[in-house]
């Protein structure tokens, strides 16, 4: 709220200070009109306050509370027990893998789509299918991969006949397998999110580079990549965040045996083994910190990207 008010008064200030007019009335009228203008965003602000910011604040406070309601650092220190801290490691590793896979594959696919020699229909086809794949997630996706790469999955069984074990990429028990599942929506998501940035690349840049003697690779190394890098990293940060936050897919794959942070929080909140809401708050606080770092990185990269792509 405080930010809203300062912003509102700053709208009122630039209004011409009319020296000849009765100085007492003018500014106040200007302020109230400016205030009315800000009233237009009040419903959304209030809504987000109740359903996004207050829960976040509640969580921060509760992370430092004992079940009896007293201040404690016990929840926080409990997070640093090996089991919980390693869950952060697992989540971060999974997110990094998923962002890297999805990011690089998505970049390759997206550049292929916008390449001048690619036929027109390719783009609409790929974006439509990307839209479909990016929306195939959660419980149904988990089941699809269980039936493909799970212990009795179609591909697993087929490879068993060839004498090859696919246990290393079993999505129900390995991080690599889970990353492969996440990639199913991260890869198309990368394509969809990166296309606008690629559309911002001017044809003239490629042609000017060629004209000045650059090969296709040199153009990519010296011009396209430096320009795209902020958008590229920004989008990969979003993919990272998406994988880090994901719960449904992982939970449906590994059940209560999973060791990702999200899965632990779920178990501690509603699990059949142990219920310890205080610890869940502390873990969630940890996740919020990670996400905050990501958002700052995303914001800085976005700002950098918009400097070039105007």
């Amino acid at each position: 709220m405080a930010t809203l008010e300062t912003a509102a008064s700053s709208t009122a200030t630039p209004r011409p200070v009319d020296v000849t007019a009765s100085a007492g009335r003018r500014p106040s009228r200007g302020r109230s009109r400016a205030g009315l203008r800000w009233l237009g965003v009040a419903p959304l602000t209030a809504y987000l306050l109740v359903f996004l910011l207050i829960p976040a604040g509640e969580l921060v406070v509760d992370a430092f509370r004992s079940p009896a309601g007293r201040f404690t650092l016990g929840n926080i220190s409990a997070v640093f027990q090996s089991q919980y801290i390693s869950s952060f490691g697992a989540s971060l590793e999974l997110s990094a893998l998923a962002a890297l896979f999805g990011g690089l594959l998505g970049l390759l696919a997206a550049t292929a789509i916008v390449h001048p020699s690619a036929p027109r229909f390719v783009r609409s086809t790929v974006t439509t299918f990307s839209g479909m794949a990016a929306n195939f997630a959660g419980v149904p996706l988990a089941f699809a991969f269980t039936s493909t790469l799970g212990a009795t999955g179609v591909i697993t069984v087929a490879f068993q006949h060839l004498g090859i074990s696919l246990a290393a990429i079993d999505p129900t028990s390995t991080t690599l397998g889970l990353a492969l599942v996440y990639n199913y929506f991260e890869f198309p998501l990368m394509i969809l999110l990166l296309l606008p940035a690629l559309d911002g690349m001017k044809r003239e840049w490629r042609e000017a580079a060629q004209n000045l003697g650059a090969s296709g690779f040199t153009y990519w190394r010296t011009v396209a990549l430096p320009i795209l890098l902020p958008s590229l990293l920004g989008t990969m940060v979003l993919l990272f965040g998406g994988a880090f936050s994901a719960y449904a897919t992982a939970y449906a794959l590994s059940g209560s045996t999973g060791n990702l942070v999200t899965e632990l929080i779920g178990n501690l909140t509603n699990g059949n083994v142990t219920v310890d809401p205080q610890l869940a708050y502390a873990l969630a606080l940890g996740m919020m910190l990670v996400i905050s770092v990501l958002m700052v990185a995303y914001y800085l990269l976005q700002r950098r990207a918009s400097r070039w792509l105007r």
Partner: protein
Amino acid sequence: MAALSPAAPATVRRPRRRRHLPLWHAFWILAAAAYFIVPIISLVQFSFGGRVDGHSAGFHWYATVFADPNFASSFWLSVQIALETVALSIALLVPTAFWIHLRLPRLRPVMDFVSVLPFVVPPIVLIVGLIPFLQPFTFIYSRPEVLDFIYVVFAMPFLYRSLDAGLRAINLQTLAEASANCGASTWSTLIRVVVPNLRSAIIGGSFLTVAIAMGEFTISSLLSFNTFPVYIFNIGQSTSNEAAALAVISLLLTWALMIALYVVGRGGRTTAQMAATR
């Protein structure tokens, strides 16, 4: 045409450069296609399998699904929540987006940022924070309608971005001035002029919202509401073939929504299409 031309040197190079690409491309396209299609084929195969003698079970599991009264009740619960979420989202976001574009344009970058927040705030974190806050309000906390309010937050990035793109495309300032010049109030400008022009953005954003609300698992499961995805999950704990059949149904529903979105989007700008909760 080109074959007749005497300018052979110009055309000689191109086939040489292009001959590599199709093979190379074809390999990657096939690999990507396999990656995306095989899990779906496996899923479908599972939904027809499960007989001890190894023969196809046909539509047995689908019949089982449709015979289960819990299927219908969870499905309609999800539909109801989805429609309520759409209505609430539109009521909240359409006037706000309009107002920001018309009167507070410098809030636009702020909104761009705010609108991605729910995209990265983990649902599990949000719900862990919401439970202690909402618990005292039993009249809402115990009813499935509580999900409407929470889903609006998660649908916001998609609906807002869709509206934002739509508003950018219509030159709102001029439209609003022209409308005011004809004597319309701001409110009637919104209803009579802006909303009809934003139709495809609103419909597109609504489809995405439906997709989110229909697929959301984390929150409804932690609040113990038996929505459609929770139902699928629970079936999966016991009968995997039946769960596969349900997953196929859910997949077809999502695709139908996406195709509808595509058809709507053809009229105007297509917006980025990702909405599922993961």
